[in-house]
């Protein structure tokens, strides 16, 4: 029986009862309980099912290392699977459900796997389910998937919010046990700025439970005193409920702070991810106790000895009434003593060491406890909780000497320092044979930007298990870290510690040492993933010898606890099986996070409206209320078309094109890039940037230009306006504004740094409004303020002036083939000018148009569009743009590339117009087929559609495409099989299908 006891419970507040439910059953606990302690107090020993065999699982640990007791927590938009009960604070109304069983926790059909476990050893699926081929997809895999997987995924969108915080410290201390606190104090007193993270709710770590006196005080009081002195220091920040999740390159570390998990629904973010940059990091993360590998060590009620002690001391809970303690080291005697003092029957202490332990053993004996040395557990039996235990000699194959009926077993296989954070960023380990543990190899620490080590360990994390030595080690770490940051630590007195000395551990990797095959197949290493001693031995036998192979073949250590309990035992078993020393076998790689962290915390505030920045033009707010349907273009949202109430989206596009061609349209073109280029060498520079000559452009004039990458491909196009002798304004595509500016700066800074040129990206200084169509001039004239006549402002020129009293710069350029004015206006007045234009346009039937109408009109004119006709593999020559490539210039970016054999190959596909024979619209992206197949059996092709639309102007489909020898094949008909099952026939025509002579734009 697991129950609350009257005494003890330093962390609970018995005056504040709390109610909660487990699998719908109401239960009671106290404020300060963890869900684990509360479940145990309610005698809920069975809490879950294992991954593969669906074996009954109970709570085995008391902290972050818990592999078994995972539950679904909360409901609806706050439901979360796989929460460890040992690190879940109890709160009123908490609602938990157990996982991975059907139909119920007590009766789980999946448990047949356990009965069949002999047929399902490690890696059995690699050897089976091979035939027949189709069965894997339809039968085997679905069954396997359904039985794996632990908790259920949430069904609703998360109700909580998350945030990030950038923190900086000289010294980051991870772990707030006595070692962490001591190290922090030392570094802080030296003057360093110190940040201390503790994952739990409590300072002090294990020590208050383990006992010992420091400076004449009970450990607990000493801890309180140190914490309060740290709190009073301005250079120290202390955080609880904040886990050091990972250590990364150059002193970067992540802290995972859980703010409202223990009080869901309260104001503020649920989790905060601390992005910490520290000059030095001290990991004072303590040590974790190892289980012992004996048959039946997974039966609920078998628990780590230290955990059992924690439940008694911290929460006033006795996990059993009749307990057997089994150990290979002295520490577990503390548990026996604690249990005895709490009134629990300790039936036996089995010490695997032939001569047992030291002072603690004597103390236990003094309390009347029976200690059997050289003994171990042959087997623990019981279904859903421990019923009895068979004792055997440790040196033997497991013949039972005696059976004891009991309801709980406390086991201790020794301690492993938590070296995870030391190792995340490359810190290496050393095997200490005597202590039977991997230690940080201080000679090979993770190195930072300066090539020097930046992580130190302190206390039990260094492998120093005695309190006095741990404090000394921590002091040393604090000093060293402070020194590395340029501070000098004062010579302080080390705290005085009273503690009992301990006898050395005797490593026990299998209990009993020569356990039979049958027992090995019941001796669990990884409780969650059901990996047993026999599985690791099988992996070794089959040649999966590297520890990494063993891990992947057996899934040892791949569970949600990442092998915190199982890894060392597993690799020791492997080392034995291979006959290689443990350090030769080595560990698997430690990877962040230390324990799992929420995706929400990782994404931080980048959700919903803040997922990505949305860019707004100065006119943006007008579009929505006027029917705009938007399309994302980079981070902008541009109106695709303005739909009227009784219209389809397509219908709107058609109307917009027609109206622009027949009357006048207005377009928000503010997103186009505008880059100012100025200086004595500006012309020379632009001659390198563009394929054509820009230096010869006269002030007041505009010229269309092309830009290529150094690799020859067309990357952007646009109109350049020459402002004055030394100044050009380069227009880029919407997508190009930022990267073309960066491209220019790159060449200026890294290649032609002696050229006198400055650039400035002024894209957002201006709103740009295009007024387009036969009545465009009339609209502008209605506003008045400047002469926009053909003579004052001819095609491909620009002029400064004002319209409706607003200062503007007007460019006579056209992307539609219509009479067109692009009006640049300061962004702050963009909306005002737009409103004036809209009002003035009313009598001319002016309508706004969106990007699709823009695309159709440019296609009717045979103008190329970056991103449609180009795709990163197209050179200007492919597009018939040779007229815009200077032959005279010695050099420009991309020129040499375009001389390579593949680029001058006459079989490159070239731009043409395509006209379906029946007037239908060619499908986007369709290919023109040619005869036969290629060497790989693929149908030969001879061209493709690059853009295709229905042209309301011509009343039929129009398209452009790239075709083999295209321009030489005018009139030929090509076949385009569509993915709609139809085959389209289209004739090769001139790409310009509207107003070839350009009369309309030049009026």
């Amino acid at each position, binding site marked *: 029986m697991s129950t609350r006891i009257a005494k003890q419970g330093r962390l609970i507040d018995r005056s504040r009862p709390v109610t909660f439910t487990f699998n719908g059953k109401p239960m009671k606990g106290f404020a300060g309980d963890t869900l684990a302690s509360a479940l145990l107090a309610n005698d809920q020993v069975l809490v879950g099912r294992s991954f593969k065999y669906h074996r009954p699982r109970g709570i085995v640990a008391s902290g972050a290392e818990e592999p078994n007791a995972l539950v679904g927590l909360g409901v609806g938009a706050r439901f979360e699977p796989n929460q460890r009960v040992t690190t879940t604070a109890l709160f009123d109304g908490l609602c938990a459900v157990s996982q991975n069983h059907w139909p119920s926790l007590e009766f789980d059909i999946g448990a047949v796997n356990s009965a069949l476990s002999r047929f399902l050893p490690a890696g059995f699926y690699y050897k089976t389910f091979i035939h027949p081929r189709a069965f894997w997809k339809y039968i085997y895999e679905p069954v396997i998937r359904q039985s794996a997987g632990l908790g259920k995924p949430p069904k609703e969108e998360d109700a909580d919010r998350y945030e990030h915080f*950038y923190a900086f410290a000289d010294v980051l201390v991870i772990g707030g046990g006595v070692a962490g606190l001591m190290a922090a104090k030392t570094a802080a007193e030296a003057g360093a700025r110190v940040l201390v993270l503790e994952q739990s709710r409590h300072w002090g770590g294990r020590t208050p439970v383990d006992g010992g006196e420091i400076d004449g005080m009970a450990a607990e009081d000493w801890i309180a005193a140190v914490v309060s002195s740290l709190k009073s220091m301005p250079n120290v920040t202390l955080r609880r409920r904040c886990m050091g999740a990972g250590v990364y390159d150059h002193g970067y570390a992540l802290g995972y702070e859980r703010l409202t998990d223990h009080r869901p629904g309260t104001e503020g973010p649920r989790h905060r991810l601390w992005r910490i940059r520290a000059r030095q990091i001290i990991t004072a993360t303590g040590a974790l106790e190892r289980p012992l590998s004996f048959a039946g060590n997974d039966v609920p009620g078998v628990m780590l000895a230290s955990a059992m002690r924690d439940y008694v001391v911290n929460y006033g809970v006795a996990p059993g009434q009749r307990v057997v303690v089994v150990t290979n080291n002295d520490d577990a005697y503390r548990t026996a003593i604690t249990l005895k003092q709490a009134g629990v029957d300790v039936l036996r202490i089995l010490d695997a060491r032939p001569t047992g332990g030291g002072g603690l053993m004597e103390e236990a004996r003094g309390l009347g406890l029976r200690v059997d040395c050289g003994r171990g557990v042959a087997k623990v039996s019981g279904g859903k909780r421990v019923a009895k235990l068979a004792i055997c000699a440790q040196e033997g194959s497991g013949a039972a000497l005696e059976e004891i009926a009991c309801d709980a077993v406390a086991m201790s296989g020794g301690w492993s320092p938590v070296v995870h954070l030391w190792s995340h960023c490359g810190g290496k380990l050393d095997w200490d044979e005597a202590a039977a543990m991997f230690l940080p190899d201080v000679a090979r620490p993770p190195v930072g930007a300066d090539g020097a080590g930046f992580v130190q360990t302190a206390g039990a994390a260094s492998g120093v298990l005695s309190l006095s030595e741990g404090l000394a080690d921590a002091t040393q770490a604090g000093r060293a870290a402070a020194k590395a940051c340029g501070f000098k630590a004062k010579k302080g007195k080390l705290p005085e510690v009273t503690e009992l000395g301990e006898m050395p551990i005797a490593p026990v990797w299998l209990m009993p040492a020569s356990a039979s095959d049958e027992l090995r197949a019941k001796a669990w290493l990884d409780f969650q993933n059901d990996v047993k001693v026999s599985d690791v031995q099988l992996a070794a036998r089959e040649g999966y010898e590297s520890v990494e192979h063993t891990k992947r073949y057996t899934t040892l250590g791949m569970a949600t606890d990442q092998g915190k309990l199982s890894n060392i035992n597993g690799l020791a078993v492997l080392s034995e099986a291979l006959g290689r020393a443990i350090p030769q076998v080595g560990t698997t790689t430690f990877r962040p996070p230390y324990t799992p962290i929420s995706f929400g915390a990782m994404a931080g505030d980048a959700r919903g409206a803040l997922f990505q920045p949305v860019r707004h033009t100065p006119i943006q707010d007008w579009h929505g209320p006027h029917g705009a349907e938007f399309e994302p273009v980079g981070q902008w949202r541009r109106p695709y078309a303005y739909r009227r109430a009784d219209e389809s989206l397509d219908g709107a596009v058609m109307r917009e094109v027609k109206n622009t061609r027949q009357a006048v349209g207005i377009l928000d073109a503010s997103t186009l890039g505008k880059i100012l280029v100025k200086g004595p060498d500006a012309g020379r520079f632009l001659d390198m940037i563009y394929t054509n000559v820009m230096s010869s452009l006269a002030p007041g004039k505009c010229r269309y230009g092309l830009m290529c990458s150094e690799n020859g491909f067309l990357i952007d196009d646009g109109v350049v306006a020459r402002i004055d002798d030394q100044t050009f304004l380069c227009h880029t595509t919407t997508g190009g504004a930022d990267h073309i500016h960066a491209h220019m700066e790159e060449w200026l800074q890294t290649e032609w740094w002696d050229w006198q040129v*400055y650039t*400035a990206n002024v894209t957002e200084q201006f709103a740009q409004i295009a007024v387009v169509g036969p009545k465009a001039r009339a609209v502008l004239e209605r506003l008045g303020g400047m002469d926009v006549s053909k003579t004052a402002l001819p095609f491909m020129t620009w002029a400064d002036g004002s319209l409706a009293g607003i200062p503007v710069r007007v460019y006579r350029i056209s992307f539609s083939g219509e009479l067109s004015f692009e009006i640049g206006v300061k962004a702050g007045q963009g909306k005002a000018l737009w409103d*004036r234009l809209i009002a003035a346009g009313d009598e001319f039937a002016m309508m706004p148009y969106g990007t699709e109408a823009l695309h159709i009109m440019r296609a009717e004119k045979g103008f190329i569009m970056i991103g449609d006709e180009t795709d990163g593999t197209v050179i200007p020559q492919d597009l018939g743009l040779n007229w815009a490539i200077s032959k005279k210039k010695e050099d420009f970016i991309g020129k040499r590339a375009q001389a390579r054999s593949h680029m001058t190959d006459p079989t490159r596909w070239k731009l043409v117009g395509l006209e379906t024979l029946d007037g239908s619209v060619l499908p986007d992206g369709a290919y023109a087929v040619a005869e036969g197949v290629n060497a790989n059996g693929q149908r030969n092709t001879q061209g493709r559609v690059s853009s295709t639309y229905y042209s309301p102007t011509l009343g039929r489909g129009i398209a452009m495409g790239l075709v083999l020898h295209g321009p030489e094949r005018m009139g030929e008909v090509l076949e385009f099989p569509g993915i709609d099952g139809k085959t389209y026939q289209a004739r090769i025509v001139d790409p310009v299908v509207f107003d070839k002579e350009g009369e309309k734009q030049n009026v």
Partner: protein
Amino acid sequence: MSEPISALNGARFDGIARIAEAGLTGMITLRGDLASKPVKAAVAAVTGAKPPGQGQISFGKTGAAGWMSPDELMLFCPYAAAPALLAKAEAALGRAHALAVDVSDARAVFRVDGAAAREVMGKLFPIDFAPGAFEPGRLRRSRMGQIAAAVWMEQDGGFGVICFRSVAGYAFALLKEAATPGSAVGVY
């Protein structure tokens, strides 16, 4: 003539810090040899301030000058005066190789004040805002959430932030989120 408007027309929010769009602000990008006489003269002409040192913003009678790069300053001045001050700057620059351009409308400016202002900034910029590490007169160009932004501390301890106009809405929402009630970090 029509009254110009700033990107968010002076939006405000009160949370653990006060966030306000500063409204119309005159801004001139000045590129040139920062050590040269003409550039110094242009800075003085616009702001009345001395050219700022690396990573600094210097305050003058008519405005402030922020260090943006080794060859670029951002000059702040009253919005309405910007065109005239730009002309003055150009006059001061004379024939020197330099570029001065009015970018008042291309940017949005925010003020962040209050006890938790440092923390609000610390949630968004990868910068150390601890007292002592970031003090009045300091200016840093960096990243705020997912956008480029510059942040400085005013003489009164409040923060100024500028970013591009098109992302003003995002910037404001981001600052607002970082200043949500109940989200104080409690470190500065």
